[in-house]
């Protein structure tokens, strides 16, 4: 495709513009941003894609702002053999006009024109390539996906020296192969559900056959079994007459034998009867003999018992005498023992009397000591009870007396010591003291405070001062003492009252001591007894003494008494021993006598029983003999024994004959024959029943059309097998085709990557410098790495500028390769913003180099970026206001440059 011209009227910011493009080479369309050189690219897209009736947003946006006019665009282009002028107006007054100038002229309008253009493009334009070689402004300049372009693939095949690819799009062939493949196979190459279902259905059908065949085989087995059973029944019936005949013959034999058995049994019974009778007769004879023997024996035993009785009677008489003597001995010994005991008791009593007399003396003395002590105690207690003083009172009295003395001393000290020298006799009275001093005599007087020394007729001398208080204290102390003494029952006025108090206190203490002493004495006298007990003991001892003294003379002494007692005890012990011996002898004699008496009683019992039995036996014997004599009995027994022997002999003869017949064998044979007949009949019945059952089963199963079922199952299985085989073959074919085709496609891609890569490298060296090489993905034809100066860098790791330059180079390389085949223009909308000027000149060279073989359209608002493109035609777009002057003719420009 070559775009030759694009004209715009009222299209976005462009009032009117006509842009001519160089058919081959680079056309640079310059325009400020507000003009929107992208408008050119958008107009191309809208013309090719949007019907004039379209209401798309981009279509509406093409209307100039604020003006009620319809945007219009016209494009003149060549594609394939077609030369086309194509115009559209949208929004207002929509219209489409198509003029095809060649190969055969066509002129269409409206929808027909739109559809015809689509048809022409479909026929001539490699849409993926066209899209890939376009770059839109505002999008990052990424590498184009060139892998989908058939045109490019063809061009690459050709450049790689491969066969030119067919007209047929091998991509769509592969898709069709894949579609067929997926009928039976999953994308990963496994059998898909449909194929697995067929496999399962085939397996299931085989299983159905097996089931149906088995059912049929069972039915046939039952039929065969039925036939066999019926044959066996028939064979059994055929054998039956022989069996019956044998059975009947043996039954007759058995009957004869059984009759003989009956005879033997009868004879046996006869012999048995005779033998029983003989046994009875023999028993009767034996009984008679036994009875006679019993009488004789009884008489002998009676005689012997009588002898025993007599002998025992003798011994009893002897023993009775011995017992009587022993009895008397015992009586004597008992009496002697009693006497000895009495003598001993008397001796003991005498000794006791002596001891009692001593006791009385001692007890009496103790009794008197008790009485004396009690009298003492009573007297003292009487005193104490009347005594008003005690230790405490006494101590307080003493204290009071001391205080009186002290008070008095103090009183005295508080008085005055007066030395009175009588110049003439002078009486002096102080208190009670009244004395007379001779002239020249000196008296020393102590005059206490409060007291007066009276010199009668002369003066009353008193001492004044503190002595008054001391005197009062003294009087208080004296009063206190007087009170205490009064409490002690003394007259305080008595001058010796204090001394008497002291005497009384001593007396009281003494009395207390004597009470305690008397109590001790009483305790000692009583010891462990009370006075009453002592009195009691005394009374008893005196009674015993009195009693004893009533009879005999008391012994001379206690020792003598004790000696008498010991002698009496010895005598008593001897008497006891003798009494024991006599008692033992007496008891032994009595025992012997008892034993003999018992034996005698036993003998007597035996004698009496024997007599009774003997008597009965004698009577029985007599009665029996009266009935039949002993001889008669014996004869009868012999006769019957002989008869029994004869009967047994007859039985034995017949039995021997029977044993010769071997009845057991005859019976077994007969039983066996009968059993054989019966069993055969039973067997036939069982088999007939079994056959009947089988017939039922056969009829039941026959309802189901077993053979048909097998046939149906086999048919179904055959069909399933065929279907599966067909599917497997189809799957294998599609898989093989797919594998081989894909492999070759991949190999081819790898091969034709080479020319593409060479072209990319040729252009890249212009940009990056000599020695630059790249690796290219054979599927997408995108650069994967760039190597420069020996450094290999993945595409993604390159700088934004380098990536952008490689993206442009890739498009240019593709366009260059496909140019001979028609191809598509490379449209670059304001790219290379990231590239520095050095690189830009390289890109310019690359653009120029590519432009030599293809159409390159560069839309830019920065013309300087592309200044280095050598052979470029430059077109300037002006804003709407300046539209008239903005028309340019790239072709002319290009020619100018050329």
């Amino acid at each position, binding site marked *: 495709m070559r775009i030759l011209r694009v004209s715009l009227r009222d299209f976005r910011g462009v009032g009117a513009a006509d842009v001519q493009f160089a058919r081959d080479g680079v056309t640079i369309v310059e325009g400020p941003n507000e003009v929107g050189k992208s408008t050119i690219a958008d107009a191309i897209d809208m013309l090719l894609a949007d019907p004039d009736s379209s209401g798309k947003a981009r279509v509406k946006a093409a209307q100039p702002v604020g003006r009620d006019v319809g945007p219009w665009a016209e494009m003149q282009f060549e594609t394939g053999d077609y030369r086309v002028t194509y115009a559209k107006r949208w929004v207002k007054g929509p219209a489409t006009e198509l003029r095809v100038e060649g190969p055969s002229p066509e002129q269409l309008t409206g929808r027909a024109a739109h559809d015809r253009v689509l048809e022409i493009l479909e026929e001539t334009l490699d849409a993926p390539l066209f899209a890939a070689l376009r770059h839109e402004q505002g999008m990052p300049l990424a590498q184009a996906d060139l892998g989908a372009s058939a045109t490019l693939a063809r061009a690459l095949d050709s450049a790689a020296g491969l066969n030119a690819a067919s007209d047929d799009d091998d991509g769509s062939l592969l898709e069709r192969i894949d579609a067929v493949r997926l009928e039976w196979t999953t994308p990963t190459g496994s059998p898909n559900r449909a194929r697995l279902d067929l496999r399962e259905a085939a397996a299931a059908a085989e299983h159905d056959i097996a089931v149906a065949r088995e059912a049929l085989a069972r039915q046939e087995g039952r039929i065969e079994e039925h*036939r066999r059973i019926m044959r066996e029944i028939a064979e059994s019936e055929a054998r039956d007459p022989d069996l019956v005949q044998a059975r009947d013959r043996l039954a007759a034999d058995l009957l004869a034998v059984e009759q003989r058995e009956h005879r033997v049994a009868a004879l046996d019974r006869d012999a048995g009867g005779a033998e029983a009778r003989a046994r009875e007769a023999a028993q009767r004879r034996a009984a008679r003999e036994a009875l006679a023997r019993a009488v004789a024996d009884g008489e002998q035993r009676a005689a012997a018992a009588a002898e025993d009785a007599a002998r025992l009677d003798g011994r009893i008489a002897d023993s009775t005498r011995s017992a009587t003597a022993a009895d008397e001995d015992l009586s004597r010994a008992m009496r002697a023992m009693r006497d000895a005991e009495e003598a001993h008791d008397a001796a003991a009593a005498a000794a006791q009397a002596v001891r009692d007399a001593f006791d009385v003396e001692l007890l009496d003395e103790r009794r008197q000591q008790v009485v004396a002590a009690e009298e003492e105690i009573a007297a003292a207690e009487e005193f104490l009870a009347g005594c008003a003083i005690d230790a405490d009172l006494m101590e307080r009295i003493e204290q009071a007396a001391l205080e009186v003395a002290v008070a008095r001393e103090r009183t005295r000290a508080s008085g005055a010591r007066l030395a009175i020298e009588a110049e003439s006799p002078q009486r002096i009275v102080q208190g009670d003291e009244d004395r007379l001093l001779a002239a020249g005599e000196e008296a020393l007087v102590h005059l206490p405070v409060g007291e007066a020394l009276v010199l009668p007729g002369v003066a009353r001398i008193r001492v004044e001062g503190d002595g008054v208080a001391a005197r009062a204290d003294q009087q208080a102390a004296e009063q206190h003492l007087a009170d205490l003494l009064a409490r002690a029952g003394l007259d305080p006025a008595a001058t010796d009252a204090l001394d008497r108090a002291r005497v009384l206190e001593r007396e009281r203490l003494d009395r207390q001591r004597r009470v305690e002493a008397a109590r001790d004495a009483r305790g000692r006298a009583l010891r462990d007894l009370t006075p009453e007990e002592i009195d009691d003991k005394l009374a008893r001892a005196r009674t015993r003494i009195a009693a004893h003294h009533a009879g005999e003379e008391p012994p001379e002494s206690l020792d003598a008494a004790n000696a008498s007692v010991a002698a009496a005890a010895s005598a008593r012990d001897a008497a006891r021993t003798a009494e024991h011996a006599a008692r033992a002898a007496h008891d032994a004699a009595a025992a012997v006598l008892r034993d003999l008496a018992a034996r005698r009683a036993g003998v007597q019992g035996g004698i009496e029983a024997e007599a009774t039995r003997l008597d009965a036996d004698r009577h029985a014997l007599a009665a029996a003999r009266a009935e039949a004599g002993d001889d008669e009995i014996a004869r009868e027994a012999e006769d019957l024994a002989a008869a029994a022997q004869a009967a047994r002999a007859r039985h034995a003869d017949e039995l021997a004959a029977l044993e010769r017949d071997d009845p057991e064998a005859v019976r077994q044979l007969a039983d066996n024959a009968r059993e054989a007949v019966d069993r055969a009949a039973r067997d036939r019945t069982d088999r007939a029943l079994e056959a009947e059952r089988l017939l039922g089963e056969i009829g039941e199963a*026959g309802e189901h059309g077993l053979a048909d079922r097998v046939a149906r199952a086999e048919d179904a299985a055959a069909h399933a097998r065929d279907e599966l085989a067909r599917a497997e073959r189809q799957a294998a074919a599609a898989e093989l085709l797919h594998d081989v085709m894909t492999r070759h496609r991949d190999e081819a891609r790898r091969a034709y990557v080479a020319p593409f890569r060479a072209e990319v490298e040729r252009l890249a060296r212009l940009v990056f410098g000599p020695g630059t090489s790249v690796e290219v993905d054979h599927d997408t034809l995108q650069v994967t790495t760039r190597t420069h100066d020996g450094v290999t860098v993945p595409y993604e790791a390159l700088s934004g500028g380098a990536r952008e330059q490689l993206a442009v180079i890739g498009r240019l390389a593709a366009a260059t390769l496909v140019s001979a085949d028609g191809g598509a223009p490379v449209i670059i909308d304001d790219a290379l913003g990231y590239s520095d000027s050095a690189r830009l000149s390289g890109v310019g060279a690359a653009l120029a180099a590519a432009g030599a073989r293809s159409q390159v359209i560069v839309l830019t608002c920065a013309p300087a970026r592309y200044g280095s493109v050598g052979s470029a035609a430059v077109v300037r777009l002006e804003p709407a206001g300046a539209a008239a002057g903005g028309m340019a003719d790239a072709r002319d420009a290009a020619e100018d440059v050329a």
Partner: protein
Amino acid sequence: MRFLHTADWHLGMTRRFLSAEAQARFVDDRIDAVRDIARIAADEDCAFVVACGDLFDSNHVDRQVAARALDALGQFTVPVLLLPGNHDPLDAGSIYTSPAFADRLPHGVRVITDSTPIAVADGVEVVGAPWHTRRPGRDLAAAALEGLAPPRDGVRVLAAHGAVDVLSPDADDPALIRVEGLRHALFAGAVSYVALGDRHSAGEVGDDPRIRYPGSPVATDHDEADPGKVLVVDVGPQGVEVHEHGVGRWAFTRIAARLDGIDDIDRLDAELHAVPDKSRAVVRLALTGSLGVAEDARLQQVLDDHADVLASLTRSEGRSDLAVVVDDGDIDALGLQGHARDAADEIAALAAGEGPDQQAAHDALRLLHRLTRAS
């Protein structure tokens, strides 16, 4: 005296190579054949009909088959004698004794259960040799004839079933019918005609027109000679006269063709087009020759088209030797270029080789052919 001799109806028979729809037709037509026989017996004024064994394909056929057979048997206007054969022996599972059949047997139809002579019409007796088991282990015909004196007056027919010794490859089979014994009975006058069943091809035995197989009234397989008939037999003092009457419409056909090019395929196509009564035609192909890929694809198309119309179209594996040869012209014809062409060449090489992928490669080429044509 005239009667109708038939055998080997094989009612209920199924054929694996038939589709379900064709199978149903196959079964129906066998029942219809019985009605045809009834009509022939009436039209030809036959005194009776004797059907000599294998009237049912098995004792274990579907009860529906039995019911429809009874319905068809009800069409007969003359006495009919049914002889149990090796396929339908009179054993415990016999269809003839099953209540579904025995209780509804139409008047005039009788199953031969032993060899007692049956007076089927005035002066006519039939002695049967029915099979009671699938392996009788003896010559049942000989057993039926044993001690049989010539009838005092009239005609006697022996109805028997089984292979005859002169035609059987298995000479040791104790159940074979000894033709010598039959001849002896005919010679002695014990019987006047021996009506046989078992062989599906019609024909006389041992060059004696009085000993005959009528063949199956409806063909059952490819290896049958002259099936689809019943026999109308006249027995008179001058001897026996037999007329064949066509009954069955089914045809089992073998077509052998050598295919070496598109013309041969077109000829085969025409030949298949010419097959009459296609819905009852079972065709087996024996193909030889050598075809290119495109021709092979064409052949496949032709065969697929006819398979849809014929009752059955199969290729005999044993008798076919058709090679598909791949040459450059075939690959050129695909119109492939570039790597697609390379891939096609590789697959063609695989198809030409002897490797395990040969079959798959052939199929792949055919598929490629179809896909490129479809584009």
